[in-house]
């Protein structure tokens, strides 16, 4: 494999990974703070993509401009979903939590099918057709490297969000509150933290983040009622890989998975590339369950009791 090819695969992988990372940040937050496997996360991504699509289709709003609206809408949806489906199951056995979200995802998918039909919807932005070409740099032995603008934007936004979030969590009071709750719920309670509020805002915040992801992804990917399922599996892989609750981890893991996927695609074959990262997923779970950046021992934690 020559250098150009290698670099091209790497760049393509990183850009794909950026998309994965962006869509998984919300999930890891929810996972880390509330210890809930949000199986319906992919469906909220789908809702966000549809929202952005309809804003473009009906009101000619550019998807990149629709980010704010979609983010707010998803935040509200998150508050609502928390109230009716998540809070009641916080004390329940894990599998009840899992299956409430599974049931929710079935409802959301099919509601989308009923209202918006099974047609594939795309947003085609002409300005994204422009190619970004790096090089050639004959001195380095590199020919042209091509960068997809849509993915680059998603990558940069994802990176910015995670940087912002990292500092938010580390430096701000709210961030510390969230981290405290995530690390030791009982102690946080004792310190007077309103756990219910933390959970509510975290869940809604997680959905808000996936809303941003959806708006950034619709210019590149088609949306249809069952697209959520296709993304949610990768998102889980990314989240576990990166360590539950670690935003930085999710980003690193997303990039890593993207690169692995593209290289597997090329070296082994597109049919088996998913199998590669699923197997890696199992390996990570077994060998280093806390992921690359998670806190060791977290995966052993038993169920949390109800808030009341």
């Amino acid at each position: 494999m020559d250098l150009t090819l290698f670099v091209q695969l790497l760049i393509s992988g990183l850009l794909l990974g950026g998309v994965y990372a962006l869509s998984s940040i919300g999930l890891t937050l929810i996972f880390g703070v509330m210890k809930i496997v949000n199986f319906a996360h992919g469906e909220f991504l789908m809702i966000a993509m549809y929202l952005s699509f309809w804003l473009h289709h009906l009101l000619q709003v550019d998807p990149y401009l629709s980010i704010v609206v979609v983010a707010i809408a998803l935040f509200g949806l998150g508050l609502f979903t928390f109230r009716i489906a998540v809070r009641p199951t916080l004390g329940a056995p894990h599998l009840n939590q899992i299956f409430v979200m599974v049931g929710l995802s079935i409802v959301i998918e099919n509601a989308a099918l009923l209202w918006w039909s099974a047609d594939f919807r795309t947003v085609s932005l002409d300005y994204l057709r422009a190619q970004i070409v790096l090089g050639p740099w004959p001195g380095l032995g590199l020919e042209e490297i091509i960068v997809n603008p849509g993915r680059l934007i998603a990558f940069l936004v994802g990176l910015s969000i995670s940087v912002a979030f990292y500092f938010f969590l580390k430096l701000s009071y709210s961030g510390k509150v969230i981290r405290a709750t995530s690390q030791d719920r009982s102690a946080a309670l004792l310190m007077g933290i309103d756990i219910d509020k933390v959970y509510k805002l975290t869940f809604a915040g997680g959905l808000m983040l996936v809303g941003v992801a959806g708006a950034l992804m619709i210019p590149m990917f088609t949306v249809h009622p069952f697209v959520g399922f296709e993304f949610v599996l990768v998102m889980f892989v990314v989240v576990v890989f990166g360590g539950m609750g670690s935003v930085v981890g999710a980003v690193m893991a997303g990039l890593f998975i993207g690169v692995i996927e593209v290289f597997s695609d090329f070296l082994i074959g597109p049919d088996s590339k998913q199998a590669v990262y699923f197997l890696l997923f199992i390996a990570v779970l077994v060998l280093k369950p806390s992921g690359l950046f998670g806190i060791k021992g977290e995966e052993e934690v038993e169920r949390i009791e109800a808030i009341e």
Partner: protein
Amino acid sequence: MKPSNSRRLAFGLIAALIALGAAPLFIRNDFYLDGFILVFLWASFSGAWNILGGYAGMVSLGHNAFFAIGAYTSTLLFLRLGVTPWLGMFAGGLLAAAVGVILGIVCFRLRSHYFALATLAFGQVVHILTMNWRGLTQGAEGIALPIEPSLAHMIFASKLAYVYLGFGLFLVVLATAIAIERSRLGYFLTAFRENEDAARALGVKTGQVRLIAMAISAFLSAIAGTFYAQYVVYIDPSGVSRLQLSVQVALFAIVGGLGTFNGPVIGACIFVPITIALRSYLGTTAPGLHMIIYGLILVLTMLYMPKGLYGTIRARMKARSQ
């Protein structure tokens, strides 16, 4: 439970089984017989899942893998080597059990969410295998079984025969489940499920015990897979290894009530007819509506009857008797 209650329950169970077994004889309608067959198939598969998921508390989302292993193994042995499915199903079962044990050895150290995710990934890997190992499975095109009814082929011209084949499978799974519940294995599994550390402290070999449960669970799931293959006489990845199968089989057990053999049966008896009815009556007028209702039932059950139907009813009965 008081002895008279337990005897009452036993009678009730036997009566229900007799009714269930005799009813198909009076039903000439193929549609309803098909319903019975599916109830038995799902009650068996779900009951098999429950041995690991309910008794041992290890919720697996990868059981589609075992179902697929069963379906493909017996079918391939039948088509390529002429081995009768009656034997082929045991081969499938043993293979599934072996794979399950390996999966257990690798993943049992993980708890709840993580175990669920690991098994999910495993199930997906097997699904990808069935799609892409085309030399073996013919990929998404699937494998058609030749329709030559005979006992040796385990293919029958009459639906009634399939009903009783399914009923037989169901009884086997039921008997296995009851036997486990009453045995030391069952006590150990319950001990593990209720308090893992205490169980270990008391000397229960939790690892071994769970592997046995996994092996039995995988074995029976594979047999259910063979039954599917013989009934539909066509297998393909979308039919036998898709993720929704794993979700469904866990769902029936959970909604029915985990941890006892009744749960999966109740779950199957409720959900299979509901699914068929909803799809038949609403499937075309408002596509998606029947699935929405299905999903809502699941959500509402999880929210308001977290112990599942059987668990909730039993709790209420207990409360009333006090």
